[in-house]
């Protein structure tokens, strides 16, 4: 099965990385999380509520909504700060990509691990920019905020296309679809991964993009 994927590109300053990534991924996870299921008897369950809260960014003029789940937030933060540190490290080329991948597990025969099948991937490609003064920094705050707003609108658009999501499982197969480790929220199974070198396809993509841009500029 082919997973559908969305890719965003952003130019941000170093200290904006964490918030930029968190705002998009939290918005995606907010859409991809349900309330906790509680089973009464086979074939019957009730769904809990999903709380949400606003998060104001410190380094971007932006506010986003995320699930009010400390554990989920912690999971996301840990991974994002790993990416941020790698991206802002001394030996980094200044660009990188972090991905949020939703997958479902498929049971295989013992002794093998269950197979993980991705069904939706959100890629965020970041490029670091250097700013010289506070004026540029202020403009960057606003610009990144506007760009993130566009991304959020796009996320909402994609979410409401109602493309494939895994079928609602039976109680016994619940954790093949959902991450049931969180006490207050039940997101689809997801994992975060990042790379700071940038996949080879990225350079091809940007070259094509550059070509298109140059063609259009005439």
């Amino acid at each position, binding site marked *: 099965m082919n997973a559908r994927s969305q890719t965003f590109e952003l130019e941000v300053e170093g200290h904006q990385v964490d918030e930029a990534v968190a705002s998009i991924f939290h918005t995606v996870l907010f*859409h991809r999380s349900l309330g906790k299921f509680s089973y009464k008897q086979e074939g019957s369950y009730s769904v809990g509520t*999903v709380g949400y809260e606003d998060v104001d960014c410190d380094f971007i003029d932006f506010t*986003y*909504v995320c699930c009010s789940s400390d554990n989920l937030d912690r999971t996301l933060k840990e991974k994002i700060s790993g990416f941020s540190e790698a991206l802002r490290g001394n030996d980094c080329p200044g660009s990188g990509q972090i991905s949020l991948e939703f997958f479902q597990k498929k049971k295989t025969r013992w002794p093998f691990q269950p197979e993980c099948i991705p069904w939706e991937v959100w890629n965020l490609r970041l490029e670091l920019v250097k700013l010289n003064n506070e004026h540029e920094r202020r403009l960057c705050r606003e610009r990144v905020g506007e760009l993130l707003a566009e991304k*959020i609108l796009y996320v*909402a658009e994609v979410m*409401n296309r*109602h493309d494939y*999501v895994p079928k*609602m499982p039976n109680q016994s197969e619940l954790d093949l679809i959902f991450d049931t480790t969180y006490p207050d929220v039940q997101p689809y199974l997801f994992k975060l991964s990042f790379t700071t070198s940038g996949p080879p396809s990225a350079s091809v993509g940007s070259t094509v993009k550059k070509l298109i841009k140059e063609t259009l500029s005439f």
Partner: protein
Amino acid sequence: MYNGGSRLPLCVEISLRTVEGDCMVLETWCVGVLPEITDPSVRVTYTVYNRMGILLKSLVSVTRVTPAYKLSRRQGPDSYVICYRIYVGEPQFHNLGDGYNQVRVGQLSTPVGTIHLSVAYRTKMTISPQHSKDTSIMLKSDHFTPDFSPKHLRSNNSIDNSSLLSETLKVGAFADSVRPSAKDPPEVAEVPFSRLLIGNNQQQGVSPPTQSPISPPPTNQLQQQEDTDNGNITPRPPSVASHDDFIMVDLKTPFAGSNANTDLGLFYRECQSAPPLQGSGAEEPTVAEQVGDLTRQLEAFESSLLDYDNVITSICNPTVDNNN
């Protein structure tokens, strides 16, 4: 919720109102049902429920990214407040200004129709001044209260008692509150001669400007003023209408002296009348007399035309004159 009757969407309009009373519509949310597009195959209990949840999450997420959200976070009682209006009907996008953005947040097919949710938001955040109401600066001023409107004053004071009026006047903004009463006599003293001219102009209509009346010598001021008050010098009736106008103008002069009957009124009268001839003496005959015997003078001049010719000839030919 859905009764199959109303096909009109439900709209929520978010607007900004400043302390000055200016209003600006920021965004309009619109949720509606299209009953003709149905999807009988979807399961209500799972699919519709779940997708409705997603639509609501999108709604919550998108509300945070519109310009109105940022403005709403900065609202306050001394700057502006955010208001809302809910109505059923077609969304009114025209009051969002030029270049507004329209975003389809999501739609959801159900067995009874398709629910759609969209938002249109303003992108140009300039308040146009055309909506200013009774609270604008001009009308806050006390210069234009009904009690001091020219109409009111004229109806109450049909007789020309401008001195009384000037006492009841409000002092104009920044005006000197002390009335320069000492200046009154000389300024009023010039008035009769203007009236004299006006009267002559209107009666005869042909008075040449060079024969306009005489400005009085300073020593005669008091005497002249008395004459004016008695109405002895000139007939006044023709100029009454214009004097009524003076009153109207005089009363409403911001930044003017407190006695409104002096400066502007005088200036107005001076403009109406021709300037007084500077070089004339007090002993010369009046205009009426001068103009009256114009015909006689002309006849006399014509009769002595030959003399004039001789004079000119003698000037042009001084040698001949000398020889004679």
